[in-house]
């Protein structure tokens, strides 16, 4: 990483530009970025892409619910047992995936970066407290914690995002911390200290920019985890019932015996969408890791 001199933040924005340019060089990162782009586009234009209202119960005739219809031009992926259009549900499910993925990733990266920065920079008791806290969090079983929290407060997206953020920050914080420990010894931090910069100024102007790419990397991994967690929680019935999500669709399919009827058109597509989006997160982090931090691999 380039040593940050007068305008460290400009260097940082340059690094983010580099991060984006990497996508064009690494096949994995490119595929991942394209999937993310497609997901965001579908989420934005969901109302145009969807062929039906996803929560509307459809009828084939008077009082006859359009249950379990096979795939057709009218219903691209058929209908659910409750008579709803599967394709449209799939399209709208992308919105919840985007919301959960991005907010959780942002929270994880923000908490992890902040705590990692503080503990690596100030060391001493701050470091001890943060690292012991990380130990405790790693001692909390992930999904059970989400379930219990969802049950005791109220089931819904916010609870899931909150628990993902609370449980996933330690990995980010640990990596950021060790990076800060090396950065703070570098000459430019020393120079800043000698010239009388305040501690906070050194921390946020001189140290923080050089660890931003790492936050970005761990944020992109968190996107996948958040979506998987949301899916699992929804599947177990702890999601927000008013929001259409892929996990919720799978729960609906499971509860309505879709497997027994061999309704692959119902339970395969939502799972595939989850795989694709989570995979995109893996691909991106993998590609960036390889280029930004070659010493971590190779």
């Amino acid at each position, binding site marked *: 990483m380039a040593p940050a001199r007068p305008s460290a933040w400009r260097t940082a924005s340059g690094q983010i530009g580099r991060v984006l340019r990497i996508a064009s060089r690494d096949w994995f990162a490119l595929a991942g970025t394209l999937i993310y782009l497609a997901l965001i586009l579908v989420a934005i234009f969901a109302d145009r892409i969807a062929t039906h209202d996803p929560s509307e119960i459809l009828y084939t005739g008077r009082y006859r619910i359009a249950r379990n219809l096979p795939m057709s031009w009218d219903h691209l992926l058929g209908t659910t047992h409750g008579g709803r259009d599967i394709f449209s549900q799939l399209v709208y499910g992308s919105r919840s995936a985007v919301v959960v993925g991005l907010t959780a990733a942002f929270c994880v990266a923000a908490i992890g970066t902040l705590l990692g920065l503080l503990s690596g920079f100030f060391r001493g008791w701050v470091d001890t407290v943060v690292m012991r806290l990380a130990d405790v969090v790693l001692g909390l079983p992930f999904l059970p914690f989400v379930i219990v929290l969802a049950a005791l407060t109220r089931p819904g997206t916010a609870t899931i995002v909150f628990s993902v953020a609370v449980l996933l920050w330690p990995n980010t914080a640990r990596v950021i911390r060790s990076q800060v420990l090396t950065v703070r010894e570098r000459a430019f931090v020393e120079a800043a200290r000698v010239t009388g910069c305040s501690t906070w100024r050194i921390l946020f102007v001189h140290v923080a920019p050089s660890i931003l790419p790492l936050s970005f990397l761990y944020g992109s991994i968190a996107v996948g985890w958040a979506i998987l967690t949301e899916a699992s929680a929804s599947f177990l019935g702890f999601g927000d019932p008013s929001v259409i999500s892929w996990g919720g669709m799978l729960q609906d399919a499971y509860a309505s015996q879709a497997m027994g009827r*061999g309704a692959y058109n119902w339970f395969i597509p939502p799972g595939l969408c989850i795989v694709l989006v989570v995979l995109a997160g893996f691909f991106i982090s993998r590609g960036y890791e390889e280029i930004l931090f070659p010493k971590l691999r190779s």
Partner: protein
Amino acid sequence: MGYVGQRLIQAVFVLWVVATLCFLMFRLMPGDPTLNYIDTSMTEEQRQNMLVAFGLDQPLYVQYLIYLKNLLRGELGNSFLQGRPVLELVLEALPLTVALTLSALIVAYIFGVIAGAFLAWKRGSLTEGVAIPLVLATRAAPEFWLGMILLAIFAFGYGWFPSGGAASAGAEYGSEWERLFSLDFLYHLLLPALALAVYLQGLPLLLMRSTMLEVMQDEFVTMARMKGLSEWTIVIRHAARNALLPVATAFALGIGGSVGGNVVVETVFSWPGLGRMLVTAVQGSDYPLAQGAFLIIAAVLVLMNLVADLLYGWLDPRVSHGRKG
């Protein structure tokens, strides 16, 4: 000894904090804590007796001390729905979860280690180019979805396996051991274990591959080559033995992680283990049982984190044998 002692103290500390968190979560959530704790179908007199027995009429710190004391004695209260001691129920479910977790992990790790070593061997090849994204995809797939596919194909489609549960209706066994090693049990275990194994094999596979690649660059592997040792000796005795260090640690961590993570697989296959117990308890507002199941899952996780640390030290002489030089 200092290392082991330090780790032990840390584990006990984490357990204590988790137990405290659990206390706070279950008592301080919105609503009347006594309503969370006490069955609504009780008579007023029963309710009062219950309150006194659990110290719920006392100030919070006293309640906390009573809670800790009860925990240490293994007293986790009674389940609302089943009316039996929580500890008893939890200890009944634990072996089933452990059986599922261990069988899946063992299959996953044997496969993952071999396939990972193979892919390290084949690096840069087409096989690798296809296999790596495929493995990543299994890591990205929700476990319950893999379970649903397996169910649809093998249980409902072909009818080869049962669609859920851990025993056929009416099956009775003399002892728990007899049950766990009966054919009927294995027959029920196969699909859920397979679903879990498909999900779990990615980690050891990728880990084995990357550490193998790293170790193969090490000077001692080059030296083994210079000594004219056979390729087999080099790969197995030197490269793989070194690469196994982190994989073994991951295995121990995997036990802890998947006892909790089994929640969804157990639900899909109606496997009567701890995870499913937690879900049904939470859904049925059976708070004592939910808290007990949560605590045991957390305890297994902390214990396995500890085992992983100790195992690493034991396998790596650089940690277990001090410096004399």
